[in-house]
């Protein structure tokens, strides 16, 4: 067995909407346990790339392999239950309590109710929400930051090896956002999941990413560790780095 098995692999992947290509020539590997941040402006194809992994989209050309198997060969339902998914709008079910929201995937997988409950309480602790106070509430009674924590807990519920996150902290106020980034960073080190994280915020990319993939017009223009990324001479990377410079000064 490899020291670093490959969790996700893209081979010559393209996806079109009508005549227009949303992503093109995607060739990369994500190693098990790493956090790859997909960085880029709005509409550059980050979200499309993410949705190709859990087969919300299927590639028009090429192949996406998850744990060595093409997503077209996976049963899409089984595949998605092995991949945690967090989106910006959170997408909590408004008619479910927090407890039921977090327990969705385990209950789809027919866990014992007592086991689901135990798992949900443990996850609430993990994401920093007191189970006694939050388990029985509804999503609309929570703040944006608390909802986002629930979203993360829900994605982790069935202990999936891979986690996809699409600008999960994008809608939060700057202070809550930085708090959640810090906490998520610690969580990530404890859990050792493979994470693919979409953002347009270079600050966030540097905080969380073990590698950063910069996308422009549906293709990767830079794919590098944060240390290498700083040295990139690509104009788009330079543009992002300038923003970061202004932020820090």
């Amino acid at each position, binding site marked *: 067995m490899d020291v670093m098995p490959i969790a996700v692999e893209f081979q010559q992947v393209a996806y079109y909407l009508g005549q227009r290509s949303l992503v093109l020539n995607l060739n990369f590997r994500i190693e098990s346990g790493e956090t790859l941040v997909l960085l880029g402006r709005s509409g550059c194809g980050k979200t499309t790339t993410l949705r190709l992994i859990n087969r919300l989209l299927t590639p028009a050309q090429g192949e996406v392999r998850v744990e060595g198997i093409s997503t077209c060969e996976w049963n899409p339902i089984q595949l998605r*239950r092995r991949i945690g998914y967090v989106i910006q*709008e959170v997408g909590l079910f408004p008619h479910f309590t927090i407890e039921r929201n977090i327990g969705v*995937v385990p209950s789809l997988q027919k866990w014992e109710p007592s086991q689901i409950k135990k798992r949900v309480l443990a996850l609430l602790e993990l994401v920093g929400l007191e189970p006694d106070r939050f388990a029985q509430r509804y999503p609309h009674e929570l703040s944006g930051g608390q909802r986002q924590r629930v979203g993360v807990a829900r994605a982790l519920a069935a202990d999936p090896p891979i986690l996809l996150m699409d600008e999960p902290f994008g809608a939060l106020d700057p202070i809550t956002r930085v708090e959640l980034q810090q906490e998520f960073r610690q969580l990530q080190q404890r859990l050792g999941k493979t994470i693919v994280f979409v953002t347009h915020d270079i600050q966030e990319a540097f905080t969380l990413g073990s590698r950063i993939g910069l996308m422009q017009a549906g293709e990767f223009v830079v794919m590098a560790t944060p240390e290498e990324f700083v040295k990139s001479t690509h104009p788009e990377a330079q543009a992002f780095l300038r923003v970061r410079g202004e932020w820090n000064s």
Partner: protein
Amino acid sequence: MEFLNRYGEEILQRSGQHLFLVFTSIAIAVLIGIPLGILITRKPALSRPVLGFANAIQTMPSLAIFGFLIPVPFIGGIGARTAIVALILYSLLPIIRNTYLGIMGVDPAIREAGMGLGMTDRQLLLQVEIPLALGVILGGVRLATVIGVGLATIAAAIGAGGLGEFIFRGVAVVDSQLILAGAIPAAIMALTADFALGLVERRLTLKK
């Protein structure tokens, strides 16, 4: 007072017939309309023809529909059966449309989250989409019921009985008391149904 002594029993009997016509036709329209509304959320190609057909029926004058159905074999003829078929046809549009709009109106982010979590289409429908659309769907049933109570008065024209009997008779002999004997119970029925279903609807609609 004298009027009530003379007609009281018939008013009750006609009200019973009227309720039967409305209740039966709404029940059947719900059983047809809700599944049809769900189907067209799954097969978008069907949504235009189905909604278009239901729309077309609604634009036809109601008296004409009752008349058209009389010569149709099996479902036609003189009597309650024909009236129920006509009322079903009329009730379908609000029920199908509200089912369709209710489900299509579920926040796409919630639908995407459900799919991303690995729900099958059936699980998504039963656990998420229908519960969230229930208030809107019930709104359609409520509208159909209120319209149905009014329309069922026309059923008397094809011999199906109901409160319309009084109205047609009253018009024929120019007796406004007789007309009111049909119109007032029908109005009470419509208002009661509207109020009761409105209560249920509000309970099922999610507070945000």
